[in-house]
């Protein structure tokens, strides 16, 4: 696909927000939204979230109904001043995260660095063994189809729609 062509303030949101509100749709057509750690895979122009195999409902939903959404509306912890809120509607593909793709290392590092207490947890073999399920994960890769932006997070405004454009 190539890299997404994005305004810098939107790319900063994708890179720096600690959580997004990730929505899948279940078999009954019910939307289910949960806070989720996002990872921006810039070289592939996609966003990735993961789910433990112990709690795979969002992955199962995304497999059955690939239209998903990610709202970036809570900047807590992100080193950004007055960031926009961003809604991404995209097509999801779901895979078991077993082949150690290069991006999974970057995602792992980013997640651990953002949670100082996680370093001692992942460095402890006993903790890793007891919580193995935390590291057995399904990847939900989201290719954006539509991106809406609320400047400065002002939800009283009608959002601006960005053209989704890829750069090879």
């Amino acid at each position: 696909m190539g890299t997404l062509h994005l305004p810098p303030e939107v790319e900063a949101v994708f890179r720096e927000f600690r959580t997004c509100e990730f929505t899948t749709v279940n078999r009954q057509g019910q939307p289910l939204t949960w806070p989720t750690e996002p990872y921006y895979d810039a070289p592939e122009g996609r966003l990735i979230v993961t789910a433990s195999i112990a709690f795979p409902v969002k992955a199962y939903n995304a497999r059955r109904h690939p239209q998903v959404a990610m709202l970036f509306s809570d900047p807590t912890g992100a080193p950004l001043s007055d960031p926009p809120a961003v809604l991404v509607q995209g097509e999801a593909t779901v895979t078991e995260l077993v082949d150690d793709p290069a991006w999974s290392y970057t995602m792992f590092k980013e997640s651990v660095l953002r949670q100082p207490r996680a370093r001692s947890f992942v460095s402890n073999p006993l903790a890793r063994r007891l919580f193995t399920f935390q590291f057995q994960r399904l990847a939900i890769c989201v290719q954006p189809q539509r991106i809406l932006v609320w400047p400065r997070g002002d939800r009283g405004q009608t959002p601006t729609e960005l053209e989704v454009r890829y750069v090879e």
Partner: protein
Amino acid sequence: MWNKRLIACARTYPSAVLTVVEDSGYPRSVRCVVEFDDARELILFPVRPLDVVGRQGSACLLFHQHNADLSGQRELLIKGELREEAGKLFLRPGDFLTGSGRQDTDRMPYAGSPLDIFRYMMLGRRKARAYLAKRGKPWTPRPWGKMLRYLDEP
């Protein structure tokens, strides 16, 4: 069904994320302020979220919070029906869901007591075993040496 304990949790958040499903099949979310009508067991929107004007049907409302270092996580999801009557938009709650599965707190298990963490570990191990049994083969072991070395690379 109105859950008074979880509604009390929901009142502590300054805003929530409302999500509906568009005709295209894509979910659409918007952050908004809500109010609670205990007598009628409804959740109201004092300022109409522009994004969902005219939409009714299945919806959900997420309340969540975390600290800057992702500690202290809380999350609560209310599934329900979005309705409009006499020009007023409201959510009629159906199910209340929390990240821990509990119906008395929105605190995530790993933000709780050692007992909460132990219960979470046992639940996760049991459910992962079920996934692997269905899969029919074990999960590839993680390359921990390589992963930990990568953490220290500049």
